[in-house]
């Protein structure tokens, strides 16, 4: 079995496992230039991730990255992107979840991988996507009380103008 066949082999297995968790759980499969990607419905992300992690033939035990991307022209506007890594298969899988702007929330996967804690806080901080079920969803990179989501495409590159973090301090010099 050559390398490409092996790749297809585990992807079919992964799709089967994901569909077993819930028949509706695969919206689309993409063959990316670097790794395959599956798009799943937002409500099922925790079930899908648990199944991918726990299946004995797959064992996607590491969440190697969690992030989001924003496309203003599209509905749903946001994508939450999970990069999974399986040490047993030596394989990577991308899982994507669409999040609309009108209902900007997504279930947290911290119960599946505790390492999702900080990346989810970062996505909340930068894109304003609320992760339901997160133990401590606070801003992580920007200061407390900051009210913008800087990585949204409609946020200006140079920022919202002068921001005063401490309103009562008017004269510093």
């Amino acid at each position, binding site marked *: 079995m050559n390398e490409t066949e092996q790749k297809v082999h585990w992807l079919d297995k992964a799709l089967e496992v994901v569909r077993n968790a819930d028949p509706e759980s695969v919206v689309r499969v993409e063959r990316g230039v*670097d790794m395959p990607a599956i798009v799943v419905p937002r409500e099922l992300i925790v079930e899908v991730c648990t199944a991918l992690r726990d299946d004995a033939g797959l064992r996607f035990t590491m969440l*190697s*990255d969690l*992030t989001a991307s924003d496309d203003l022209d599209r509905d749903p506007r946001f994508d939450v*992107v999970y990069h999974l890594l399986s040490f047993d298969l*030596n394989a990577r899988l991308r899982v994507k979840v669409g999040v609309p702007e009108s209902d900007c929330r997504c279930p947290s996967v911290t119960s599946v991988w505790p390492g999702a804690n900080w990346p989810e806080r970062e996505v909340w901080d930068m894109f304003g996507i609320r992760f339901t079920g997160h133990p401590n969803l606070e801003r992580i990179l920007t200061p407390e009380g900051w009210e913008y989501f800087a990585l949204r495409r409609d946020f200006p590159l140079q920022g919202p103008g002068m921001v005063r973090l401490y309103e009562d301090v008017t004269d510093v010099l």
Partner: protein
Amino acid sequence: MRVSPFINPEYTNPSAGLTDTTLTLNLGPQHPSTHGVLRLVLELDGETVVSCAPHIGYLHTGFEKNMEAKTYHKAIPYTDRMDYLSAMIYNVAYVLSVEKLCGIEITRRCAYVRVLVTELQRIASHMVWYGTTGMDLGASTTFLYAFRDREDLLNFFEELAGGRMTPSYSRVGGMAADLTTGFEKRCRAFLDQLEPKIDDYEALLTGNEIFKERTQNVGYVSTEDLIALGVTGPVLRASGLKWDLRKNQPYLVYDEFEFDVPTATASDVYCRYLVRMAEMRQSIRIIRQVLDGMPEGDINISDTKFRRPSKDTIMVGMEELIHHFKQMTSGFPVPPGEAYVPVESSKGELGFFIVSDGTGKPQRVRVRPPSFFNLQALPLMAKGRMIADVVALIGSLDIVLGEIDR
């Protein structure tokens, strides 16, 4: 009896009646052992850490946002400034992702040069780690030794790329410049000197009773917990898992070289030290093979769609001038899609996740910083340890706040 006017008769002992037995201590953000601006809020019971909460973001400058507003080439200098100790590795990781999206096959010589600078940078990064970790634990000689020898490496980077700390050496489809004349000879001479120097490093710490007391059995975390937290790199390898992307998911031409992946089993600070010291020796081994097998030929791809025309031709040719102008203003269009190409940085798995919408500027650039995930394991390691151990633990994680905060 006369009452002193300086004593308030209503004075009560402020700690009387308090039921708390713990003390909250701010370690950082301005603290030498935090290797940057990291703030830890420690809850202490005596000297024992009850809980540890890292607060980050002090260096946040919006690199990812800035990179979205630049053409693919112009974003390269930002990658230097994230992990400023592994700038070369960041350059390579970024252009690998862009090349994946564009479907560019780089030349063999380019791949060799990239491996060469990656491994030189790994040694330089580990030297800084060695020096600062030793100094955190009271061995200031290590710092002087390591920074003395790192100087030679920085001189190499200056020779190749023009910059010491922020070289920006890689380009999409090639490198900024070819190797300089005589570089190979100087590099070999440096490696020959470096090996006995690493022996010196080890002589200072490996058998040192004080160092062993401070580091052995400190900061144990099981492999399963490390994997669940997303921890990679030497920290993961020190727990016994033989996982190195250079070996397991080879990129560039790493599958052509012989090298070992050092591991240790105890998953403590001392084991992380041993793994990194062994990695420096393996890097030397790889660099020697690179120099032996360095192919002749072009360093840049011939496809002029992605390559910038050389400076000499711009000055005399109209076509080249137009081409240069196009490249500098609107950049080259990158096919729509997504790419994430992980590489093994000196700290762990590093990758750029790039989303392209088909224009000359990326729609989204995400860095997967290894230190960000590694630092998440600190509360688990610090719990129940003494406060002095926290200093050793921060050193053992080898964090760089520039890449954590971006």
